[in-house]
């Protein structure tokens, strides 16, 4: 049996229609090559601080190898409750307003499945992290991309307001943003929040890079006036504590939404791995110095790389958070993909084409500075050589 496109019906149509990322081919090219200097990673180059790793080891030694409560270890949820209160003044009850997830990715998936009805519009400012639109569609919604490229990659009140001339279910906001490094000040967030409240549109706020905000204090969306009941806060341990492989995130929101998410979570995942949760407890208790130290290092690399890129003619503004520079390759005369492919083949430097994050990422590349200063220096000098060559 096959449909009109000739696909056999073995695979769900929805999955068949998911963005078949052309980027995959490029990724495979990178992975097949040796001795690449990579500024293409989406994770810290640090290893998890030792005391956190040690807590994970200790949990194994002590025989903590079981399931936990679906919602996550009480100890971890209580730690999160205290942390959120202290950091943002947010009061979430560990009992029914916090859910421990397997990374923020699962949090996004749960959130969308929990709230989306068929055809609901989910607004995604783009360029954006890759999972939002496909997961919105899988959940039965319609992803609506809001183009931010004309506004310095920032969602403006004007763009949001005009998108809401047609009702929408939720806005999926990610700040500091992967891939652009853009974040929002308190005032900018307040303006967006007012519009969301007016139109009764929920905010799903992915703040995984919150601790890596360099020029001002990060504001949690839920802490804005009137926003808490309307917001689902997603965060996790991956980026702040260099814990990507542990897979621990958390979601905080209203009882209603958290209960709905937990319902799905108990069927699909049961719980996050217990040893990872134990390690996360340690991170909350003793990790803040390590976070501060890594942040200082990222900030220095940020200044260094942005300065270097601009002097090469790869224009980019100073990103306010995360560990990415989103640089324009316009002056090279190459498309994003072409630029990345040739840079890889000629100079063995890997960066990610902006188009991986949406069509309007064309003309840009994402350059990660989660790499040692030595590597950054070497990569910049290779890029310089590359740009000289293609100008000829």
């Amino acid at each position, binding site marked *: 049996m096959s449909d009109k496109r000739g696909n056999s019906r073995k695979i769900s149509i929805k999955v068949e229609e998911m963005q078949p990322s052309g980027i995959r081919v490029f990724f495979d090219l*990178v992975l097949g090559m040796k001795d690449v200097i*990579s500024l293409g*990673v989406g994770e810290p180059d640090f290893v998890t601080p030792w005391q956190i790793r040690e807590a994970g080891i200790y949990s194994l030694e002590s025989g903590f190898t079981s399931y936990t409560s679906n919602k996550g270890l009480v100890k971890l949820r209580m730690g999160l409750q205290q942390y959120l209160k202290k950091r943002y003044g947010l009061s979430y009850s560990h009992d029914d307003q916090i859910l421990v997830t397997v990374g923020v990715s699962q949090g996004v998936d749960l959130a969308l499945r929990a709230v989306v009805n068929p055809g609901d519009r989910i607004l995604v400012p783009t360029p954006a992290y890759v*999972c939002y639109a496909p997961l919105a569609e899988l959940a039965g919604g319609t992803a609506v991309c809001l183009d931010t490229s004309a506004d310095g990659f920032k969602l403006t009140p004007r763009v949001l307001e005009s998108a809401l001339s047609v009702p929408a279910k939720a806005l999926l906001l990610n700040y500091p943003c992967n891939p652009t490094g853009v974040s929002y000040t308190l005032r900018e967030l307040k303006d967006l929040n007012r519009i969301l409240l007016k139109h009764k549109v929920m905010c799903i706020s992915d703040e995984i890079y919150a601790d890596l905000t360099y020029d001002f204090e990060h504001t949690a969306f839920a802490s804005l006036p009137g926003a808490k009941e309307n917001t689902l806060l997603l965060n996790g341990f991956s980026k702040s504590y260099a814990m990507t492989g542990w897979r621990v995130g958390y979601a905080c929101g209203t009882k209603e939404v958290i209960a709905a998410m937990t319902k799905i979570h108990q069927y699909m995942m049961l719980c996050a791995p217990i040893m990872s949760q134990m390690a996360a407890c340690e991170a909350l208790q003793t990790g803040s110095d390590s976070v501060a130290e890594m942040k*200082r290092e990222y900030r220095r690399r940020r*200044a*260094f790389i942005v300065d270097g890129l601009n002097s090469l003619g790869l224009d980019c503004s100073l990103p306010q958070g995360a560990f990415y520079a989103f640089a324009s390759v316009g002056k090279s005369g190459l498309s994003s993909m072409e630029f990345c492919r040739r840079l890889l083949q000629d100079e063995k430097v890997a960066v*990610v084409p902006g188009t*991986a994050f949406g069509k309007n990422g064309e003309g840009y590349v994402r350059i990660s500075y989660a790499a040692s*200063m030595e590597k950054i220096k070497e990569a910049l000098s290779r890029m310089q050589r590359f740009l000289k060559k293609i100008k000829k």
Partner: protein
Amino acid sequence: MDEILEILEKNGRATAEEISRMLRKKPEAVRKAINKYEKDGIILSYKAVINKEMVKYNNSGVRALIEVNITPQKDLGFDKIAERIYSFPEVSSCYLISGTYDLLLIIEGKDLHTVSKFVSEKLAPMENVRGVVTHFLLKKYKEDGMVLKRVEENERIAISY
């Protein structure tokens, strides 16, 4: 601690130019600050950290930790006698510490014999030195924050979202 010092402590080869770019300061200002640190004796020297455990034919000899008990001198306390001791080139480090003994020395010599000779002929007979305990170093695992073993590195996937 000033961030300039933090950077140089990790990488003594970082140039003023590079540091200025990391900190978004003028190169001139960074150069000036470094010069002042050098002049004031805050930055003492720049050197490579060598993992002698891995140097072939290394004749770096032996090291010993030595606990020294001292009778302090009137008015001078430990300082004068410490100075007499640490001025020997064999003494690579010298600390005054609290607890059951007074000075902790790190001694380097080309072999066991040289170190023993230094202890028995120079150190122990000194006036005010009441006793010494010598511990020869068997193996170094970590020094000044650096692990002296090549560990297999987890190769991160070279590209990811």
